[in-house]
């Protein structure tokens, strides 16, 4: 990929966890690029380091995790060197994240609207009415009716909470959205509608996505390129079509073979 078209470039990233029994190397020398308007899928077994990479990219990793080596460049700028202020302005407005336990990442004592308003007030200085209109519009996009704006998180189903978090991540029109298993609580109809919508939005608005999932079939439908991780390393990377059709690495083939299917269904 030409340098000019790159939005994010992770170079030789190493992330370690300090544990009572020593240092655990969770991410080992990982390099990956995400182009402008590109959806990069990241898969691999549980514990291989996917979420650790996601947190590190937004510099949301917390002790005992620390980045011991490598670079993270966003449009050529060194994210690891951002000042606190720059980082806070950058997060959510230029790069946002949908957390793996999105369902539990909402503030339980604030209504849905109040969570939107907090974010909008911090970044866009929108007044109450404008914020309410914006929040309602974003909710409608993920298939939740506007009259849920005054609900508290515990009054929503798991999938509704996940959709609220997705809608919030899209609100400020960031250039990069890191999505760590964003649709685990959605039924397949709503999941497909939302991901189709994201594909369409990316065409009109232009943004890139790092899409982390255990659902390989879904990843093959949604991602442009796919990277497969094993024990902290990327073992294979390529165009989605070719990686699905002709996986090279033995581990990728094993993953594909384990993909759940409806038994006996016509292939």
């Amino acid at each position, binding site marked *: 990929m030409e340098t000019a078209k790159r939005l994010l470039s992770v170079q030789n990233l190493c992330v370690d966890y300090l544990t009572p029994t020593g240092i655990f190397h969770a991410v080992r020398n990982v390099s990956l690029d995400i182009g402008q308007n590109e959806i990069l899928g990241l898969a691999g077994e549980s514990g291989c380091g996917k979420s650790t990479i996601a947190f590190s990219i937004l510099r949301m990793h917390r002790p005992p995790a620390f980045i011991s080596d490598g670079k993270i460049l966003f449009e050529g700028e060194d994210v690891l060197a951002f000042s606190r202020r720059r980082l806070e302005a950058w997060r959510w407005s230029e790069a946002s994240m949908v957390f793996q336990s999105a369902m539990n990442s909402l503030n339980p004592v604030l209504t849905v609207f109040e969570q939107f308003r907090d974010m909008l007030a911090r970044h866009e200085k929108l007044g109450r009415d404008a914020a309410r209109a914006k929040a309602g519009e974003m909710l409608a996009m993920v298939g939740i009716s506007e009259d849920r704006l005054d609900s508290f998180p515990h009054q929503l189903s798991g999938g509704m909470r996940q959709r609220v978090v997705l809608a919030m991540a899209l609100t400020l029109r960031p250039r990069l959205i890191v999505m760590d298993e964003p649709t685990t609580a959605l*039924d397949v109809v709503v999941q497909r509608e939302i991901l189709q919508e994201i594909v369409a939005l990316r065409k009109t608005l232009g943004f890139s996505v790092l899409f982390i999932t255990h659902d390989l079939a879904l990843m093959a439908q*949604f991602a442009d390129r796919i990277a497969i991780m094993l024990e902290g390393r990327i073992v294979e990377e390529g165009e989605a079509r070719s990686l699905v059709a002709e996986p090279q690495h033995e581990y990728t083939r094993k993953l594909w073979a384990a993909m759940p299917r*409806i038994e006996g269904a016509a292939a």
Partner: protein
Amino acid sequence: MTAPLLSLEGVSKTFHVRPVLGAVRRVDALRNITFAIEPGTALALVGESGSGKSTCGRAVIRHFEPSAGTVRFRGENIFENRTRSGDRAYLRAVQMVFQDPFSSLNPTHTIRHHLERPLRLHGGGANIEARLRQTLSDVELDPDTTLEKFPHQLSGGQRQRVSFARALAVGAELIVADEPTSMLDVSIRKSVLDLMRRLKEERNIAFLYITHDIATAHYIAEETAVMYAGQVMERGPSDAVIRNPHHPYSRLLISAVPDPSKRFDANEDDALAFTRQAEAVRAGATQPIAGYREVAPGHFVAYAESDND
């Protein structure tokens, strides 16, 4: 005929949401739900996000009382004639395994602590060490390396199996499993599903299995019920419901199961057509159900008053 292990008869649940300002909103989370589960079998609840699946599970573990209808366990209404000893027995017999392996275990306690208490409550203090080890082995966790660990030192799949171990420790007869595998990778998911299968076959444990993963419903559950907007649209033998769905909503749902060969960006018209179809089906499926047609033995499909056949 003996009573089924669990039955829901016309169960409804309405929530009232009171915003600080503005009018009270009414949410009909469950409308007239009926199904039954026999010992050693599983019923899968699939369907729309927000359709009431978790609410069903929570009614069964008595998180709240239904607004109408009856929930029976071994034929007894679980909300009537309650006694302390009866409540304790029910708490043991019916266990819930939650979706999120991150929040369902107490981070400040070891796995030993999580299992020891239920084991003592259930069978007293005799042979506690041996029973602890056996319970972990039952869910294929290594007692030597697992007992003294804290939840954060285990992977998601290992934590999920600890939750199942806790249900076994108290001697559960029915486990309500609310999306227990949605965050697990394919190999761990398979091992959790195989564990559920073994528990059904070897211990006669029954499951109310709530999931969005239709392939797993087919794999594990004898029966599947499809929910939409608080109502059951279709229910019957899993193979029939999943491979030969009748109701428009079930058809839509099953048609949307991810297929790696169909890319979302391949064809904008396809995407649009899917959205239109989904909207049309949803509009039709919101009406109150007038009754069920039995299209094959045990396979029921809902019809609305406006359906003219």
